[in-house]
C-alpha cells in the first residue's frame, strides 16, 4: 500500500486517538481509494463521533485486507520414509499415554518400536524430539533417533532446539563453555564412544578445574575405564583434595594390571599370612595369621587409605579393610591355591572377620569376581546382616543374570524370614534390568507375603520401589497376577497400599499391551 494510503491514514488516526480529540481537534483522514466513498459520508457530527465513524470504516478496511506469509521461509519437504512404517494406532495411543504420565517407560517403548522396525506417529514427533534432547531423561538420543524416521530427522534439522539430536553436541564446545552438570554429561557421553578423547578433554583443563569439580570429573572416567587411564589417575592420587584421591583410587582399584593393585596386594601380603595345616583328622585347613598394618603413612594416604575408625572397626582394622578392598583376589588364590569359600570360612573364625569380609565384598565388585561374589552371597544367607544393601547389589552384579536372580531369591526369601536389617526395597531397587518371568513371580509372591506379615513400621521406601521400580522391571505377563492376591484384609495393610498396587498393575498392564502390540509377543 502506498504511503498516505488508507493504511497509513489508519495508523495516523490511531495515533491521534491516543491523544484524544480534545487536544487535537478534528483529525479526519483524507484518503482516496476504496474507503473514500464511505469516509465522504461521515456527515456532520462532533469531532469524537466523527473519529469513531472513521475508525469503524478504516479499522475494518485495514483488518480485512491483512495478508500474511510474506516473510515466511519455505523448507525443503521431508524425505519419504520408505524403510520404516508408522506404528499402529494402538501403539501410537500407548505412546501418547507414556508421554502423558508414564515417561519412565519411554525407553522401553522406543526399544520395542525399534525392534519392530516402526516409527512414532507424525503428530507425536515433536514431543519425542523434546524428550530426546531434554537433560536428565532416561532416553538417549540414539534410542529416540531410531524411532522418529526420516520425517523426525528432517524436523529435528529445522529446529535449533532439536539439532543436537542428530549431530550430538560438540563435546569440546560443551566442555569449554557448559555448566558443570552439562560438562559431566558431555564427558560421560564422549567416554562411552571414545575414552581416549574423553581423557584428553580432562587432561587439557585439569589444572584449571576447581577443587569441588575435580572429584566429580574423575568419577566420570568410570565410563570406558581402561589401562590407558592409569597414568592420569596416578597423577590424580597426588591431588590435595581427599575426595579426588578417593575417587581416583576407586577407579585404579578396578584396573587389573595397575601399579595401584600391585601396591595394595603387597600391603595385604604383609598383613595376612595364609598357611595350610592338617588337623587331627589329617584334613588340610587354611589358617590365617593377621599382622595389623602400621599407621597410615604418606604412600598409603596417597592411595586413598583413610586413618579413622569406621563401622564398628578400630582404626587399624579399618585400614586393613581398605587394603584388602584394593588387593588382587586372583593373587590371593595364586599365593595359596585356596578357593573363595575356603577364605570366607577361614575369615569368619578370625578376630578380623568384619575387616576381611567387608574388604573382599568391595574387592569382588571392583574386580568383577563372580566366584568370590557367590561365596560372599552364600555367607550373607547365613549371616543376614553381614553386608549392606548396596554391597549385596554390587556382589549380585558380578553374577550372570540367571545366577544373580537365583542367589537374590534365596537371599530375599531368607531375609524376610529373619526380618534382618536389610531392606527388601533396597535390594529390589538395585536390580535395574528386565526380570525373568520366574524371578518376577517369586518376587511378587514374596512381596504379597511381606505386606501381610511385615512389622507395623511403615516402610515408605519399599512402597515407592514397588510402584516405580518393580513395576518397570517385573515381567509384564504378570499384569493380572499383580492386581490380585494382596493381603488387603491384613492389619498391616495401609490405606495407600491400594494405590501402590494400582500403580504396579497399571504400569504392568501398559507394558504388557506395549509388548503385545510391538513385539507380537502375546504375553
Amino acid at each position: 500500500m502506498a504511503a498516505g494510503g488508507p493504511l497509513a491514514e489508519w495508523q495516523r488516526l490511531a495515533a491521534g486517538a491516543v491523544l484524544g480529540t480534545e487536544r487535537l481537534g478534528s483529525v479526519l483522514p483524507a484518503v482516496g481509494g476504496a474507503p473514500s466513498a464511505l469516509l465522504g459520508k461521515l456527515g456532520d457530527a462532533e469531532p469524537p463521533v466523527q473519529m469513531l465513524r472513521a475508525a469503524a470504516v478504516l479499522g475494518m478496511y485495514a483488518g480485512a485486507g491483512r495478508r500474511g506469509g510474506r516473510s515466511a521461509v519455505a523448507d525443503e519437504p521431508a524425505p519419504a520414509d520408505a524403510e520404516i512404517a508408522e506404528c499402529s494406532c494402538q501403539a501410537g495411543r500407548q505412546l501418547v499415554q507414556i508421554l502423558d504420565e508414564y515417561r519412565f517407560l519411554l525407553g522401553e517403548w522406543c526399544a520395542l518400536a525399534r525392534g519392530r522396525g516402526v516409527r512414532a506417529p507424525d503428530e507425536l514427533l515433536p514431543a519425542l524430539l523434546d524428550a530426546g534432547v531434554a537433560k536428565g531423561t532416561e532416553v538417549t538420543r540414539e534410542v529416540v533417533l531410531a524411532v522418529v524416521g526420516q520425517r523426525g530427522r528432517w524436523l529435528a534439522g529445522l529446529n535449533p532446539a532439536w539439532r543436537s539430536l542428530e549431530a550430538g553436541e560438540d563435546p569440546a564446545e560443551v566442555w569449554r563453555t557448559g555448566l558443570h552438570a552439562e560438562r559431566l554429561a558431555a564427558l560421560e557421553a564422549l567416554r562411552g564412544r571414545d575414552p581416549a578423547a574423553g581423557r584428553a578433554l580432562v587432561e587439557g583443563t585439569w589444572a584449571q578445574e576447581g577443587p569441588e569439580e575435580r572429584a566429580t570429573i574423575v568419577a566420570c572416567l568410570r565410563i570406558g575405564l581402561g589401562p590407558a587411564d592409569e597414568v592420569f589417575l596416578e597423577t590424580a592420587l597426588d591431588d590435595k583434595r581427599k575426595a579426588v584421591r578417593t575417587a581416583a583410587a576407586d577407579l585404579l582399584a578396578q584396573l587389573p594390571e595397575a601399579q595401584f593393585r600391585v601396591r595394595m596386594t603387597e600391603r595385604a601380603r604383609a598383613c595376612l599370612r595364609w598357611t595350610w595345616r592338617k588337623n587331627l583328622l589329617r584334613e588340610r585347613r587354611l589358617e590365617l595369621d593377621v599382622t595389623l598394618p602400621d599407621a597410615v603413612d604418606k604412600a598409603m594416604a596417597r592411595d586413598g587409605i583413610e586413618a579413622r575408625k569406621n563401622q564398628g572397626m578400630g582404626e587399624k582394622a579399618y585400614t586393613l579393610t581398605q587394603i584388602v578392598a584394593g588387593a588382587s583376589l586372583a593373587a590371593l588364590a595364586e599365593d595359596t591355591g585356596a578357593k573363595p569359600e575356603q577364605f570366607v570360612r577361614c575369615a569368619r573364625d578370625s578376630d578380623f572377620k568384619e575387616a576381611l569380609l567387608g574388604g573382599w565384598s568391595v574387592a569382588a565388585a571392583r574386580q568383577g569376581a563372580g566366584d568370590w561374589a557367590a561365596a560372599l552371597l552364600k555367607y550373607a544367607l547365613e549371616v543376614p546382616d553381614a553386608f549392606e544393601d548396596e554391597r549385596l547389589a554390587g556382589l549380585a552384579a558380578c553374577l550372570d543374570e540367571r545366577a544373580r536372580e537365583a542367589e537374590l531369591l534365596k537371599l530375599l526369601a531368607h531375609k524376610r524370614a529373619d526380618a534382618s536389617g536389610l531392606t527388601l526395597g533396597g535390594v529390589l531397587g538395585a536390580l535395574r534390568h528386565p526380570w525373568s518371568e520366574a524371578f518376577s513371580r517369586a518376587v511378587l509372591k514374596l512381596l504379597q507375603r511381606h505386606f501381610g506379615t511385615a512389622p507395623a513400621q511403615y516402610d515408605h521406601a519399599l512402597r515407592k520401589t514397588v510402584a516405580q521400580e518393580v513395576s518397570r522391571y517385573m515381567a509384564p505377563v504378570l499384569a493380572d497376577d499383580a492386581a490380585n492376591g494382596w493381603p488387603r484384609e491384613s492389619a498391616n495393610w495401609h490405606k495407600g497400599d491400594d494405590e501402590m498396587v494400582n500403580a504396579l498393575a497399571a504400569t504392568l498392564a501398559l507394558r504388557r499391551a506395549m509388548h503385545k502390540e510391538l513385539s507380537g509377543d502375546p504375553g
Partner: protein
Amino acid sequence: MSAQWSRAQVLELAPDAGSAKAGQGLARAAAWRTLGCTDQALWGEIQGSGKNPYQVRIDLSEPAFKCSCPSRKFPCKHGIGLLLIFADQPGAFTAGGAPDWVTDWLERRTQRTEQRAAKAAERPPADPEARAKRAAQRADKVHRGVEELALWLADLVRQGLGAAQAQPVRYWENIAARMVDAQAPGLARWVRNLADNASSGEGWQERMLAAAGRLHLLLEAYARIDALPAALQADVRTCIGWPTPKEELLAQAGVTDAWTVLGQRIEREEKLRVQRTWLWGEATGREALILQFAAGAQPFEMAFVPGARFEGRLVYFPSAQPLRAIVATRTDAASGVVGLRAPGVAAARDAYVGALAEQPWIERWPLRVGGVVPRRDDAGGWQLVDAEGDGVALDERTACGWQLLAISGGAPLEVFGEWDGARLQPMSVATEGRLFTVAQTDAGAQIARVA
C-alpha cells in the same frame, strides 16, 4: 461418531483438571470388575468406597454419562476412566450382552427425549399481550443504555485512548455493570473487550480504536435499527444482548446434513463456562457454531466430541451471516473419513471479508484454508502459506506450529480454525486421508489423530 476415541478427546470432557487426573488413575482394565460395550454404549463396574460396586454407563451417541457414585462432578471420574480405557485399549471390552441396568437406562433416555419433544410441541403460546409489554419495557431500558454508552464512548475518544488506558478496572466495570442493568449484557461484553484491548501490548492503539469504531457502529446501527434489513436487525439485537427464544428457532425448517465436529473451546466467563463447538456440514459445506453455557462443574446440555460426526438438523439463529445454531435433532453417528474441501488463502480470506461486509460484528470466523504448509516467519511466529505465497498467521498462544509441520512434512494441509481477523487458532487438520484435532490443554496444544 467415529468409534475411535483419543485420550485428548476424552480428557476434554472432564469438568476440571482434578477429574481428568482421577479419571486417568482409573483408566486400567484391571481395576474394573466388568467392562462391556455395544455399538451404542459402554458400561463397567468398579469397586469404590461403598459396599456395592459403582455402575458406570456411557451412551456413545453423544456421549452421555451415568454413574451410581455419589460424585456431583459430571461426568465423574469413573466415566472419564471408563472412556479412557475405551480409547487406550478398546479390546478390553466384552462386546454385547448389555445388562438390565444399562438397557433400562438407555430406554429411559430415549423415552425422555421423545417426551421432551412432545412437550415442546404441546406448550401453549405465552400470553401475547404480556409478552409485548415486557418487550416494550426492555426496549426502553436498552434504548437508554445505548444512549448512555454512546456518550461514554465519545467521551473516551475526546479524552484520548492514552488516558483511558491509565484508568483503573473500576472505570470499565462501572459502565459494564450499567449495561447489564440496562438489560444489554452484550454491550457489557463489548466494553470489557475494549478494556482488554487497552492492555494488549504492542499495537494496542489500533486494536483498541478498531474495537471502539465497531462498537460505535453497533450503537449507531441500533439507533436506526428500523431502517436495516431484517437479518441485520437480528444481528444488532443479538450483539446488544437480546435473547432469541429457542421455541421460535425450533419452529424453523433448519438444515439437515452430516455434521462433523471440527473444533471445540471452553472458556470461563466469571462463574460460567462457555463452550464453542464448530460443526461443518458435509453436503452443504456450511459451518455452524453451537454455544453452550454451564455453571461451575455442571455438564453442558449436549456433548460434542471433536472429530466425531453425526446426522442431524440444525437451526440457525437469524443473522445476515448465519453461524450460530442449535441442534434440533440428532441421530446416530455416521462414519467416514473427511477432507475439508478447503479453498486457498485468498479465497478463504475473500469469504471472510465478504461476510464482514454483510455483518461487521463477526468476532470469530470459521476459516477453512487448504493447500497450506506451515512455515516460520521472521518474527519467530508461524504462518500457513499456500502455493501462491499467500498466508495466514497462527495465533502464537496456540503454539502448535511444530506439530503441524510434523504432520505436513512439507506437504499441503487443510486447516480449520477460528479466525479473529488477524490470527488463526487451529482446531482441525486434514491431510492425506487423516483427520487430526487440536486440543488446548494446560500443557499446551495437543494434536491427536481421530480418523
